[in-house]
């Protein structure tokens, strides 16, 4: 079994989840509270990765990571290597690709928090920021954990986008799913089977955790 790929996949999934907690929570909070009439545009943008083929998303990312794009040039100038086919590029791609898997459950959980509790907090002098951390966040926690777990699992299993922007560099972009693909191509079914089994077990465990949390949050 490809232990290097296993480790890389978990590191990638962990960092993607952490990044999406930081980026996704403000977006979700904004979506669950704004009365802006064009909010659907933001919702649609966040949901795009759900419907776009990973190859299409990957293609656009590859182009924007390339030496002709400002982003690609700036990255190369700063680090000395290209963004495409690097771990950093892969991480960026994963964050965008998993955005709906984090933001949607976060926003749903935050929207379920009783509006009156938020108003009560404001009436008691709490700023919007304090209200978010002391009232909304703790009450939405089961949904937020579920979103984070889903993000982790989704990143663990991604394939198309990785193939497009990451390539197959051992230790830096060769993830579990690529490793399975490789093994099958080389007719090494034993290795492919072991790696697949690990992914299957982890995915199942993650979904059990997610549904448990969801049921609990509904009962609470």
């Amino acid at each position, binding site marked *: 079994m490809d232990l290097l790929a296993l480790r890389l996949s978990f590191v990638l999934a962990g960092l993607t989840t952490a990044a999406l907690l930081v980026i996704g929570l403000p977006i979700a909070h904004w979506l669950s509270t704004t009365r802006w009439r064009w909010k659907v545009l933001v919702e649609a943008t966040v949901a795009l990765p759900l419907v776009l083929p990973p190859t299409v998303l990957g293609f656009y990312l590859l182009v924007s990571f390339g030496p002709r794009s400002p982003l690609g040039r700036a990255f190369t100038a700063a680090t000395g290597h290209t963004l495409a086919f690097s771990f950093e590029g892969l991480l960026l791609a994963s964050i965008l690709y998993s955005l709906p898997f984090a933001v949607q459950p976060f926003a749903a959980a935050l929207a379920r928090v009783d509006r009156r509790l938020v108003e*009560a907090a404001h*009436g008691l002098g709490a700023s919007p920021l304090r209200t978010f951390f002391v009232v909304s966040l703790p009450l939405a926690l089961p949904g937020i954990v579920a979103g984070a777990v889903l993000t982790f699992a989704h990143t663990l299993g991604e394939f198309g986008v990785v193939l497009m922007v990451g390539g197959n560099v051992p230790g830096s972009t060769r993830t579990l799913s690529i490793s399975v693909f490789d093994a099958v191509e080389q007719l090494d079914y034993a290795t492919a089977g072991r790696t697949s089994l690990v992914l299957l077990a982890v995915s199942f465990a993650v979904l059990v955790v997610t549904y448990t949390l969801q049921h609990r949050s509904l009962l609470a």
Partner: protein
Amino acid sequence: MRPDARRAGPSLAFDLERHFRDGPVVRAALEVPLDAEPVTVLFGPSGSGKTTVLRCLAGLDRPERGFIRFRDETWFDAATRGFVPPQRRGVGLLFQEYALFPHLSVAANIGFGLARAPRAERNARVLEVARFLRIEELLDRRPARISGGQRQRVALARSLAPRPRLLLLDEPLSALDGPTREELRGELRSLLEHSGIPSLVVTHDRVEALALGDRLAVLAEGSVRQVGPVHEVFSAPADLVVARVVGTENVAPASIVSRDAGLALVRVGTAQLLALDPGGLHDEAFACIRAEEVVLETAPGTPTSARNELTAEVRTVSPEGPLVRVTLDCGFRLVTLVTRRSADRLALAPGSRAVALVKASAIRLVPRAS
């Protein structure tokens, strides 16, 4: 802006209009003195916009037009687009369903509005307010683990802890079951009075309005129709709309003379009435008699089961649909409703004598704690 609208003393004054998409327009204008009677009741049927007014005052909703002024501060002004956020109004708002934070202990709920105070000071204040409301033993519990009546007190404690300058209470007793509501009604009145904070209570419950309020403002059909002392508004509605909202009920201040075996003897005006003792009576109460439940005779005659027989002089007789509204002076002003045929048979006319019969059980006493 409108100097003529200002009173001499400090007041909460507002004149606001809130529109709802595809819905009604709520308009309300009122001036609440802050240095006189502590409790003003905003009374109206459900759907009249009472809660909307309260939300606008708390800063949770923004009216489309008008202004809200508190003392010399302008909290809202549609003309200048001025708006003070709820955090800086210093208002305590008691929600209908209390809206306690379910994930925090009772102590943390009460202390929520004291975040800026040093820990020791905050704890001391939480304890002080908890003692005032007699809920010290609940401080470690979660809101889900206490009763409805206790929740109401915790919510009140949470509003009082930061020493608000104004208390807004939205149907404070409606979330409680019958017996608990009876028990807490009088208590709430004395708590509000002793807190020393001017309060505005929203309710559609007449007994609640009588038990809690000093002044009553009737909100109906999109505007404040009448303002005055509670029993006056109830006994003398200014127009038909108000009359429909408050009902045809006689409400008169009563003082307790004696209590015996479940009955109470009260003095109303110069008359004495025997009524059922609702419990919790002290010196002051309101006696409420529905106009439909008064029986009229021309002279004391055969013995009846009615315990109150009041000789009266007819003051006014005015037809009202199939009924006739007869106003009597029987030591206090008593309005009765009888059918036209009865009025004709009794030959009721201004100046004629009559006897009003009222069963003890038809007189409802509403205690006023003080």
